[in-house]
């Protein structure tokens, strides 16, 4: 009997030790967590971020690290699923991470943020565009190097109404988190512009992955829409555009940065010509962006993928903030992020109170001769 009690006591002691021991041990390196989808069908949105982080960290460590310590990468997969994201977050927190670069999808980010918030860890996403992430005030520890959906929708609507001067607009989305959110903002802005300026003739969600979109295309035609604003990703966009053009419809197609992807042009080919899409401001002239691109080509033998520049910028911003803050203290890092300008591939940026980057914006692109060209 006495023996059993001692076992229990020992167990409890070890337990307590493990409970509090984890965080106390982390001190000899700066730990940068990277979370996002690294497997599954959305992997192509997550892996470029890992590459960006690897390159930035290699660079900084070569220069002596941050605050005299080496930076260590902790890469974890969240498959873009909220429930897996909480597993990932607890894993990273348990491993004593100092700052996190990620997550990629808005839903997964929201699910994980609570855990980081409690653990007082700053999170910076290169790609989560859901407006409430910064606008709700629920996530003081969240920052991002990408503009939010509403900014993007505003740009699309302004462009359609003021530059293209179209009036009858069909707003479509793919029923997804990203696409539908964007489409709703677009609708809101269109309605705000007043009935004499703009008319939403159609607002509908299409079924992603369907084999044929002719019914919705006919509907667009019947409603007499002059332009389509589409919220969603390129596979659906290319199917709709292709079917519209095959039916000899000249309806203008405006979409988002889920479509501003070279795959879209590759798939839709000649039908992609003339399609508008918003995307992060063209940074091809920025020296840091050129450098980041070259590094990637050298290290991985290919062009970087989605959100690479944003991720590169976020990694730089995070590590710079730690350096400027002089410690890994949460409040100090947040303050540093808000006050210090940092040079990134996206330009010189700092962050506003809500966590959005100042100086990062969207621009409108158009497909011309099989390439996305910025519309001035």
């Amino acid at each position: 009997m006495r023996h059993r009690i001692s076992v229990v006591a020992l167990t409890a002691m070890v337990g307590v030790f493990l409970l509090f021991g984890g965080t106390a041990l982390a001190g000899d390196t700066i730990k940068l967590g990277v979370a996002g989808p690294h497997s599954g069908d959305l992997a192509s949105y997550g892996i470029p971020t890992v590459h960006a982080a690897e390159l930035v960290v290699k660079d900084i460590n070569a220069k002596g690290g941050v605050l005299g310590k080496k930076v260590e990468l902790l890469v974890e997969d969240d498959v873009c699923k909220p429930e897996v994201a909480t597993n990932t977050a607890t894993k990273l927190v348990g491993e004593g991470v100092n700052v996190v670069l990620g997550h990629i999808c808005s839903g997964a980010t929201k699910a994980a943020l609570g855990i980081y918030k409690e653990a007082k860890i700053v999170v910076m996403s290169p790609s989560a565009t859901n407006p409430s992430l910064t606008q709700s005030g629920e996530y003081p520890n969240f920052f991002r190097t990408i503009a939010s959906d509403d900014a993007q929708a505003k740009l699309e609507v302004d462009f359609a109404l003021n530059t293209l001067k179209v009036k009858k607009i069909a707003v479509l989305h793919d029923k997804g988190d990203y696409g539908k959110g964007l489409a709703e903002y677009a609708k809101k802005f269109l309605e705000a512009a007043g009935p004499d300026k703009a008319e939403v003739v159609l607002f509908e969600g299409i079924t992603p992955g369907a084999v044929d979109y002719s019914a919705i295309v006919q509907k667009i035609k019947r409603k007499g829409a002059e332009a389509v604003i589409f919220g969603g990703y390129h596979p659906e966009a290319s199917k709709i555009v292709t079917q519209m053009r095959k039916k000899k419809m000249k309806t203008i197609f405006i979409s988002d940065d889920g479509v501003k992807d070279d795959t879209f042009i590759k798939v839709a080919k000649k039908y992609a010509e003339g399609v508008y899409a918003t995307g992060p401001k063209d940074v091809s002239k920025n020296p840091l962006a050129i450098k980041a691109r070259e590094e990637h080509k050298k290290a991985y033998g290919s062009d970087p993928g989605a959100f690479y520049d944003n991720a590169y910028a976020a990694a730089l911003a995070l590590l710079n903030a730690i350096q400027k803050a002089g410690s890994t203290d949460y409040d100090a890092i947040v303050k540093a992020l808000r006050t210090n300008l940092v040079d990134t591939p996206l330009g010189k940026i700092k962050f506003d109170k809500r966590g959005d980057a100042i100086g990062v914006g969207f621009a409108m692109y158009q497909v011309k001769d099989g390439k996305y060209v910025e519309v001035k």
Partner: protein
Amino acid sequence: MDYFLELFLGGLTRGSIYALIALGYTMVYGIIELINFAHGEIYMIGAFTALIVISVLTMLGWNQLAILAIATLAAIVWSSAYGFTAEKVAYKPLRGAPRLSPLISAIGVSLFLQNYVLLAQTSDFLPFPNLIPDFKFLEPYEGIVRSTEIVIYVVTAAVLVILTVLIKFTKLGKAMRATAQDRDMAMLVGVNVDRVISFTFIVGSATAALGGVLIASHIGQINFYIGFIAGIKAFVAAVLGGIGSMPGAVLGSLVLGWTESFFTGYISSDYEDVFAFLFLVLILIFRPSGILGRANTDKV
């Protein structure tokens, strides 16, 4: 009226596409009562094989019709091979096992093939060239119907006819029907049941491959995940028509296609799938064995 016609044709296209996949589903089900979850993946493999062959031959500068023929043939050969192998590896050892075990095995095969293609090829969407030339006589009607669509209708109808003839009038077809009725009895009267089942998988997979090539060239893009979504829809269509019945599979597919098309056209595509599924539930409540399925009451 034009609008109606357009929606009708759109529904016909969708329905024919579902039918090409549903036919294989229903054949396999008819023989071994297995919901072959991996059937959609066989279709995907067909499309990928065709794309690879097309790319290689295009680089060699072959003529378009030859490419089309060879790619289709290759898709059929390899899809059949995959269907055959999947049956031998994952379903045959499970004959006589509890009814749900082969279903789980099929889910495993489906997941395996998806990830196999993802790893061996790519997760990205790949452009699929449109192989079917524009027919001259269709030019006046271009806004309404395109040559690819016509080819899809024709091939679907032809496949249905060929399969029906195969099953009704050949010796093998007779053996298939016997196996479907009562496997043990068929074995007793000298039907080589293993061979019949293998053959069913091969024919079903070949149909799926044909669908793969046609659908991919209609849509213009493929990735490793297209099989799953199409497979579920085709499965629904097959059940709607009465699973196990070939004309039922085609009819069910067309009904599903039209339902979706008209619902989208006249009401809203937001609830397109909700409506499609509700329609399925309604039909099954009033006709528990599908539109053309035989009422399968237990012999008491």
